């Protein structure tokens, strides 16, 4: 995590050993109990329907426009602050808005409120404006907003993966991730790239090809709230994963983010700090890049092995590439759990600072929104409470992941084979969970 020089005044204490042991044991116990006691028919897809009410159209449109404006304006302001504001990451609001409010805040909020990025995304708003304008000019009728069945690689999730890898590299490997100028350039370049792609492939492309849109939508699928087609839906948490449309590259997106978050935690352990030593500059970046890639490879290899063994156990073809992707959605709760464990205290404190700092985006002593004096109370969240939340999140994420995979397996196989297919995945998820807890222990 970007600690030195600014973003993040503090990092979390390591969790106590007894908490680690208890949590790991709990994860193990619950896993085996679940495997023996869970339901025999797929239930989540039905649970995902939940209950829905129709939203009053005017209300829906007003909120939508308000949020879209907010999203666009914030993006513009943060970009401007990054490029033209103070050079120091301590006083420039851009790094905090970029890494904390956006990267951590949007998924955390999405888990509770549903996919807010759908309306907050400046790319989607710009695309909507552009598309509307083009439609009126060309045909007078709106083009359908559905990527359809296009088979080209552009419409898989691979472009999204590339975008996310770029972000993770900037955050975790690059030696000066909190430099406002670097962030500004990255935002600008990325925006240009996305806008170009949208112009070529249409607004619907964003939903499969834009990294953050894909990731935040995945997280939002776990939310109890969904707003879609003018309806507000309340459903069982995590059930939305069962009805997610699946495209090639989805697993890649999940593994990359899981590996990235894992590397973030790993880079804070004394092992990695010894490896890095006194390195700085591009040498440090190179070493961190290797570490990041290595961590992503580790989680990928583990998952691949599990999928091969599982396929073999139930008589499927283990060499079929799509087998790895089969239970990809089961990883999403674990990704969110890792994010909560590593980042929630950071979000709690630094989002407050971000709100304060945005009142003076160019470090000119301004107070545009009247929040400049807002100071987070660093004693308001005790280290003990933080430890409990971290561990609780990881265990819950693990349980949810096991449940989602099991539910999917029950829908595709006989009960006996479904259970059999889950053993290797259970082992891997326990490994991820214990590893996640170990990272918290060695912070």
């Amino acid at each position: 995590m970007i600690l030195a020089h600014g973003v993040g005044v503090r990092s979390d204490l390591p969790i106590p050993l007894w908490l680690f042991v208890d949590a790991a044991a709990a994860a193990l116990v619950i896993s085996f109990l679940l495997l023996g006691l869970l339901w025999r028919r797929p239930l989540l897809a039905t649970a995902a329907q939940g209950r829905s009410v129709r939203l009053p159209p005017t209300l829906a449109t007003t909120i939508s426009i308000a949020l879209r404006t907010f999203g666009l304006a914030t993006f513009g302001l943060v970009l401007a602050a990054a490029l033209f504001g103070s050079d120091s990451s301590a006083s420039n609001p851009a790094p905090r808005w970029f890494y904390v409010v956006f990267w951590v805040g949007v998924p955390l909020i999405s888990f509770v409120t549903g996919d807010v990025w759908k309306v907050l995304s400046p790319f989607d708003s710009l695309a909507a404006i552009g598309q509307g304008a083009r439609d009126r000019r060309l045909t007078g009728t709106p083009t359908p907003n559905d990527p359809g069945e296009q088979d080209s690689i552009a419409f898989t999730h691979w472009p999204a993966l590339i975008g996310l890898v770029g972000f993770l590299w900037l955050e975790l490997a690059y030696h000066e991730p909190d430099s406002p100028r670097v962030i500004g350039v990255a935002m600008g370049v990325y925006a240009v790239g996305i806008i170009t792609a949208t112009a070529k492939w249409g607004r619907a492309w964003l939903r499969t090809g834009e990294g953050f849109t894909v990731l935040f939508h995945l997280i939002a699928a776990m939310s109890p709230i969904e707003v879609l087609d003018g309806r507000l839906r309340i459903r069982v948490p995590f059930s939305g994963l069962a009805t997610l449309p699946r495209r090639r590259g989805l697993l890649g997106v999940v593994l990359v983010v899981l590996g990235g978050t894992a590397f973030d935690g790993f880079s804070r352990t004394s092992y990695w700090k010894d490896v890095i030593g006194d390195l700085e500059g591009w040498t440090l970046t190179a070493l961190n890049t290797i570490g990041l890639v290595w961590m992503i490879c580790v989680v990928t290899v583990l998952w691949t092995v599990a999928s091969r063994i599982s396929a073999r156990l139930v008589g499927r073809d283990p060499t079929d590439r799509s087998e790895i992707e089969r239970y990809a959605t089961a990883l999403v709760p674990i990704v969110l759990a890792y994010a909560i464990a590593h980042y929630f205290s950071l979000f709690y404190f630094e989002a407050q600072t971000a709100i304060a700092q945005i009142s003076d985006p160019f470090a000119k002593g301004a107070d545009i929104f009247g929040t400049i004096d807002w100071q987070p109370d660093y004693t308001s969240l005790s280290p003990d409470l933080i430890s409990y939340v971290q561990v609780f999140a990881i265990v819950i994420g693990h349980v949810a992941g096991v449940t989602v995979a099991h539910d999917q397996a029950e829908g595709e196989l006989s009960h006996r084979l479904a259970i059999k297919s889950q053993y290797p995945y259970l082992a891997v998820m326990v490994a991820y969970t214990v590893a996640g807890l170990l990272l918290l222990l060695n912070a």
Partner: protein
Amino acid sequence: MRRTRLFAALVAIALLFAACGNDTRKTTAGGSTDGTESAQLSPTETLDAATLEMTVEADAKAGFNLLTQTDGFTFAPEDASEDHVAGEGHAHIYVDGEKLTRLYTNDYYLGDLSEGSHEIKVELNTNDHRPYVDAAGDPITASTTIDVPATADMHSHGDVESETLEGASVSFTVEPDAKAGFNLVGEVAGFTFNGSAASSPSVPGEGHAHLYVDGEKLTRLYGPAHYLTGLSEGSHEIKVELNTNDHRPYVDASGEPIVHTVTVEVSADQAQAAGDDHSHGGDDMTDMTDETGSPAEGTIVVTLAGGTVEGPDRVEVATGDTVKVLVMSDVSDEVHVHGIDETFDLVAGEPLEFDFVADIGGVFEVELENSGTLLFELAVR
């Protein structure tokens, strides 16, 4: 059926795991050492129910006698600079706030004080030189102020009548200390040390000892242990001789003085580390962490030379603790303490001492503002 049994077995194993886990539950009090790295030791050690009392009396002949009474604490000179063992250790003697030497026995002869008023303080320490604190977190110390008159002429023994003491003996070893200096640790038989009776009329069987280095008297010993510093490189003869209260040598039945002699080889490194009792480092930065010249108790010492940082990686303290830091650097910069958000100016070559109260929980970086070099991490529970 088979699967159920397998599950039951696995659940049982997991529960066993959890139960064992509960046994390792520790309360992280200020002094417990959870971590496996010595860099994560707490800067102080709590020792409940230990007491320390001290008086300093002018010796009838010359110098002063420092007499302490300790309860719930044992002097362990043979373990000095070794791993911590609860309840034992040694003490540090401070004169006017500056550390004079280590105290290995209850009583000590202060022979070398300049004229004027001086504050004498004794503080109990662990084997690994961390201060013992009581249940309230205060260091276990005792102090007093004395007035040293203008020094009379050095007393000389001249021709003194010896006193026979049969069946008495003294023996000792001199071992290099793991940190600096040498530890003289020994034992006596048929003889009792009595520091409070020094320079008073002789009482058979009791007295004190004289310590000679290379034939010259260094000091009086009021107990069978002493911390030796200031030995130059080379070979030295260390001799301890038992004396009566009124400074006459004890002799055995055949008229021989009751002595023990040991020869010590001091290497160049050991001579350098031992240094001068009152050195403060000055230009040589390795002396900053030297035992005899070290700063106030519990201070975190960090040196920065040629881009390399020497000091603890991470220091653990409790919320509310006062953290004291000493930084010696060969470059000028600003030291920034995250969280507490204070900055201190650092001048190359000048020691920077500062302290603050760690009132926020978490892990905070203490780093150089301009170069971004991390000095250490502060973990506040």
